[in-house]
Structures are given as C-alpha cells and as structure tokens.
C-alpha cells in the first residue's frame, strides 16, 4: 500500500488535467482510462515542440525539416518495436487506431488467404471494433463467423473455442484484455492456434498500457492497439504483424508513400512498413506515442502492474462487500477494469450522479452489445484505472456510490 501511494505521488503531477475542478469545485477522479487515458506533460509538450520546431511532411523532401520530422516518425517506430518486442521495425505499421488495424487485417488477409465459406473465429466478448470488420467479410464475401462462448468468470470457454476449428478456419481474432471484464485472454487460446497453425490477431487496446507486451513470447501473428489508450495522442494506432504475413498480404489503401514506382499502366509497392502507410501519416501523433512509451518505460511496467493490480484488487474487494452492487465477470483476476451495476439503478444514473461528484466513469454497452445481451443487461457501469489513480480515490468513489444508491432508492 505504501508503495503504491509513493507511486501516485510521483506521477499525478505529470498530468495537468488532474488539477481540473469539475463543476468548479470537485477534484477530478478519472476512472475512465479504458475509454481513453489522460496525457502526461511530456506528451503534451513534445507534440507542441514538434509543431513549433521540427514540423514538415515525412519521407517526402530532403530539406532540414523533412529530415527532422522523418527522424522523429521513424524513431517512434523503433520505440514501438521495442515496446512490443517485435523482431523488426518492418513489423510495425502505423495506423490511425486499433480499429483501423483490425480493418486492415480483415480486408487484406481475406484478399490473400480466404474465399467464400472460409471461417473466422471470434468470441462473444469482443468490442464492436473486432466484430464489424469481420461482419463486412461475412456480408460481402460469404465468410462464416464463429463465436466462442464465455464463462461466467468472464473468460473465453476454451473447450468451446477449441471445438470451433474446422479445416475451413483461416484466422482467429480475440481481445487480449476484455474492456468490460478486465480479464486477460487465457494463453491456451493462443497455443491452440499455434498448434493448428492458424494465425491469431490480438486486440491489445486494453492490454498495451497495463501488461508487459512481448509479441514473440505471446506468439500472436497480429497485435493492434491505439495510442490514446496508452497515454499518447488519439489519431495514431499500431498494427504489429509478422513480416511473413505482412509481406504476403496486399496493400490496404493506395496513395502516396506506399509505392515503389508508378506509371500510368500500374504501380509497384513499397517495402514494409511503408507498403501499408498510404498518404501522409499522423506523424506528430506517432511521435507523441513514442514519448508516451518512454513515459511508461520510465515508470516501469513492473511498477505499473503492481500499482494497478493493487488498486483493482482494493476496489474489487470494496465493491464486493456492498450488497447492492453486482460485479460482472466472477471473482477471478482483473486488470485495471471492473464492470458493475447498482441493483435497480441504470448505469446512466450512476454515471451522471458520480459526474457531479467529480468522478468520471463509463456507462453504457462499452461497444460490446452482443456481450451485454449475453449478460442480460442493457448497460453496465465501468471503472478503469491508470497510473495516476489512488486508493484514496477508490474510497471517495465508494462513498459516492452509497450516496447514489440512497438518492435513487429514496
């Protein structure tokens, strides 16, 4: 406990927004990091500095500013490569978001490796971002989608998952860390894919800032995340893919920067990673993401994980003691996310009530409507933590919850 308090004290001051007063008087308690993380000063200042002192387009010109911009953009790629422990920078594609990364894989993987009747395995727990791009394949090309069940613990039912494979299965795409339950994907799911030699994409939106990611150890073929959930800017995302697959798949969008040589008769395409980066990329945002990675590394992932585990456990135990609270996803370990409902009070009411207390939580379906249907609720309230949260904030939150319950059941 003392440890985490020290850690809090050390990082809160890095986030200027945390000194904002909500409705002019309440201290902000930000429990919505899973939707988007707040930005530390280094990210804010460095992106500013980029515009002020170094900005131009990347990989286009030979003048000084172009060199400075290109250097920063490519340096960010190196940082991401190390961050994920990818084998090479060629495996790191900058996108605008995790969503774009999944769309990219769905479209180009289909084009190279699939045909009508082939199958994709997903699960009930997926974010709409990891459903709709595959629905497109079903609707346009007659691809068959199969969905692994989940257990009450919030984990994928591994036996059911295993039973979905056929000789038509071509790719699997699963969330690495559930944005509703905070539960981590069972490693068995990945090893099953390895055994069967089926590529697997991990949606790392929620894991990238909260777990130490090593794509080689994980053994995934694709991994996507968004900069804005990892303390970096919005508008930048990352797709990791193995060089083998990325080389074989066709380009996604066409435009400047992704070509080898163009004549009116046709074009050849650039080598990786430029092949997948058509048009001027979000270069300042990429740099900001690199700075955010530096920031997380400076705190250290062991510290981040210890700190967030402690808060999550503390909050879970507090909530679990309250009889009017229903926590979703059983008793197993969570990472930085807890979904709950106050019995007989809609999550919107909870969220609006907490808002005027200065507490930001998410209410709604969390872009997981099929999962909500499965849980038999139409929405949940969700707490999610970042490096800047503290146990004291959880205490204040719990007091506010009691007030909320009292207000609505008066």
């Amino acid at each position, binding site marked *: 406990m003392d440890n985490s308090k020290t850690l809090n004290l050390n990082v809160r001051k890095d986030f200027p927004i945390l000194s904002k007063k909500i*409705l002019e008087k309440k201290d902000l308690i930000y429990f919505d990091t899973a939707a988007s993380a707040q930005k530390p000063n280094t990210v804010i200042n460095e992106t500013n500095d980029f515009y002020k002192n170094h900005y131009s387009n990347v990989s286009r010109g030979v003048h000084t500013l172009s060199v400075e911009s290109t250097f920063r953009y490519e340096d960010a790629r190196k940082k991401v490569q190390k961050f994920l422990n990818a084998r090479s920078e060629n495996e790191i594609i900058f996108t605008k978001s995790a969503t774009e990364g999944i769309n990219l894989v769905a479209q180009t993987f289909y084009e190279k490796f699939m045909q009508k009747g082939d199958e994709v395995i997903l699960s009930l727990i997926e974010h709409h971002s990891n459903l709709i791009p595959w629905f497109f394949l079903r609707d346009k090309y007659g691809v068959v989608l199969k969905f692994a069940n989940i257990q009450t613990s919030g984990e994928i039912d591994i036996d059911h998952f295993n039973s979905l494979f056929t000789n038509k299965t071509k790719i699997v795409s699963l969330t690495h860390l559930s944005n509703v339950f905070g539960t981590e994907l069972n490693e068995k799911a990945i090893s099953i894919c390895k055994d069967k030699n089926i590529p697997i994409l991990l949606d790392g939106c929620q894991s990238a800032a909260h777990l130490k990611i090593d794509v080689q150890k994980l053994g995934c073929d694709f991994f996507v995340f968004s900069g804005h959930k990892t303390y970096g800017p919005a508008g930048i995302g990352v797709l990791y893919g193995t060089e083998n697959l990325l080389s074989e798949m066709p380009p996604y969008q066409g435009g400047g920067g992704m070509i080898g040589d163009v004549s009116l008769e046709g074009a050849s395409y650039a080598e990786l990673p430029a092949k997948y980066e058509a048009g001027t990329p979000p270069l300042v945002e990429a740099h900001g993401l690199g700075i955010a990675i530096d920031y997380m590394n400076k705190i250290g992932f062991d510290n981040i994980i210890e700190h967030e585990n402690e808060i999550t456990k503390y909050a879970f135990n507090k909530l679990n003691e309250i009889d009017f609270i229903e926590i979703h996803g059983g008793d197993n370990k969570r990472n930085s996310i807890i979904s709950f409902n106050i019995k007989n009070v*809609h*999550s*919107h*009411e909870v969220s*609006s*009530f907490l*808002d*005027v*207390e200065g507490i930001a939580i998410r*209410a*709604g*379906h969390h872009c997981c*409507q099929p999962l*909500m249907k499965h849980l038999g609720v*139409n*929405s949940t309230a969700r707490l999610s933590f970042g490096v800047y949260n503290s146990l004291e904030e959880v205490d204040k939150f719990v007091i506010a919850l009691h007030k909320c319950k009292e*207000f*609505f059941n*008066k």
Partner: protein
Amino acid sequence: MNDLINDLYQEIILDHGREPRNFGECEPHNKSADGHNPLCGDNLKLTFLLNDQNIIEDIKFTGEGCAISLASASLMTEKLKGKKIEVAEEIFKDFTNLVSGSDEDLKVLNEEDSLYALKGVGGFPMRVKCATMAWHAFNQALKD
C-alpha cells in the same frame, strides 16, 4: 445534494422512471416506431392510434432504458394522448428546445407542464439523447 442532480432527477422523473405510465402496446394502433440510442443501447417501441380527425386517441410504449428515457417517454404519452397532431408537433418542437437548454420562445409548453421537469437535462448534454429518444420515435412514426 447537488443542485444539478436535484434538477435532473426531480421527484416526478424518478416516479415516472420507476413506474412508467402507458407502458405496453396500443391495440389497435396505426402508427409505430422504434427509438434507439446507439450510444448506450437503450431502446423503446412506440405505438399509437391516430383517428380520422387526426387526434391521438391512445398511445403507449415499451422498452428499456434509464430513468430519464423512461420518464420522458411516460410523460410524453400522458401529454400527447387526446392531442391533435398539429399540437403534438408544436409540443415536440418546444420540448427539444427545452431539453437543449433554451426555454425562451416556447409556444405551447410552460412551467406548469409536467414536461418541464425534464429541463434539468440541459445541464447534462450527454443525456439529452435519453430525453429525446421517445420524441424522435414519435416524430419518425408520423413520417412513416
């Protein structure tokens, strides 16, 4: 308790949220529409019977949602029952103005109206959609 919260959740809202009036399906009906808030998953189905004098003879709704969306739908049905379509359309316009925070220029609604209780939604811009879901369904049904 905070004023914003008390303004948002007036007693009448909590009451109608807990026990919505005119909950169910109108039989027979000749107009219907579904309301849906894609941001949160709340939804409702509105049915009503418009007679040959263009009067809403009966109107009901079913669905699931937060206190604001249920109360708004409930108060809407109470208000619209027995009204001529032209009047209902005026009320619709007034109501959308009211919940977006502007209660000047109201033509048919006034502070005596139970619908006025939803004015507090103006303090929570993200909740305006909750309050207008039923009304948009009503508007949609008229167009279909």
